[in-house]
């Protein structure tokens, strides 16, 4: 985790976190859930856990897109640490448009 991310985490009052863990808020189709994630996890693991915690069923993860608060799509295969996501970061997991016709 970057220094900046660490400082933000402390600033958010997350003193009781496990080492190398961050609490990420994932908004799955407007439902918030907090995922306690190891910084070495890939975002795929974070997203899968968020879907499970919110009881979102019926679609595979590949039909969802994960974005940061600025609307930038995040790569499922990159780690939490590679994006420098601090505790309290808000991610949005939304259903993609899918095939149309």
């Amino acid at each position, binding site marked *: 985790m970057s220094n900046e991310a660490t400082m933000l985490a402390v600033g958010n009052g997350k003193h009781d976190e496990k080492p190398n863990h961050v609490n990420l808020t994932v908004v799955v189709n407007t439902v918030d859930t907090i995922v306690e994630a190891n910084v070495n996890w890939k975002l795929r693991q974070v997203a899968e856990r968020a879907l499970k915690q919110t009881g*979102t069923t*019926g679609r595979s993860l590949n039909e969802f897109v994960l974005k940061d608060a600025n609307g930038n799509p995040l790569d499922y295969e990159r780690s939490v640490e590679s994006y420098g996501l601090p505790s309290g970061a808000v991610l949005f997991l939304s259903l993609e448009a899918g095939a*149309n016709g």
Partner: protein
Amino acid sequence: MVKPAAADLLVERPAAPVRVAGTVEDIVPASLGPREEDVFGQAVAPVGAPSIRNDTDLAAQAAAALAASALFASMEIPAPNTAAAQRRHATVQFVDPAVSRVKFDREVAAFRRYEEVYRARGTVLINATFPKVTIMQCVPQLRPPAVLFGAVIDYTNFDAEPPSVSIFDPFTGRPLRMKEVFWPLPRRARAAAVDAPSSDHTPKPSSPSGQSDAVPQQIELAFVLQAWGPDDIPFMCVPGVREYHEHPGHSGDSWFRHRTAGAGRLDAILNIFHTYGTAPIVEYGVNVAFHPLPDGTTQVQAKVSGFACKELPL
């Protein structure tokens, strides 16, 4: 071919062409008055395509066009208080209103919780009163910022039925026709691989494996907003939107296949607006024309013709 009055004819799309005899007044009674509604249910005057109106000049103009051409009868914006309008704006709440209201409030509350995030992505909430959420989709990264369209998401009967999404002009409240939508949410669509034509126009022999030679997969342009024609009202062609599931081409794709996955949720719809509407746009597209004048000077005309965008999403 002249298309004189498609906007005003309140007829269903016929299975076969129908010939109608009579005067313009017979076909379009003057008593009908204004023919279009805005998204708030108010009658407004149509703009754009010529229409048969109850004033003399336009009636004569339409009569001349009728005499010289076929009349296109298609499902258009129906007149207020007609059966067609009632069908289009079917708001019969058959789900317990308390249930739909709770779910509507949940969607709106989630939006408001992250309203600043949505606003930064170009979504501005205009109004949220059960059962409708009205938003304006903008492109905040442009200078000056642009407005793409307004949208009404109608959660009547949610979530026994998916929400209805309609696109409108946020400044007049009038529903937009397809030709009036400046940015119909373009996207890339993978086309099926096609056989490469042979140079001598003879069929190519298949490979030993029995498969013909094919060119690599091609990328085609598609649009999230679709309509039968340029004068028709576009609908959002994605699962989770009522118009998609009511379309005869999607009768095999039930809403209940998508209901638990988050389709139709406010965030999912706004995410599509952002992904295909706001996010890909990087700059205004400008056409510049130079016209030499007799006095030796040059007149320069610049016109915004669209948007320059980065790679379109699939």
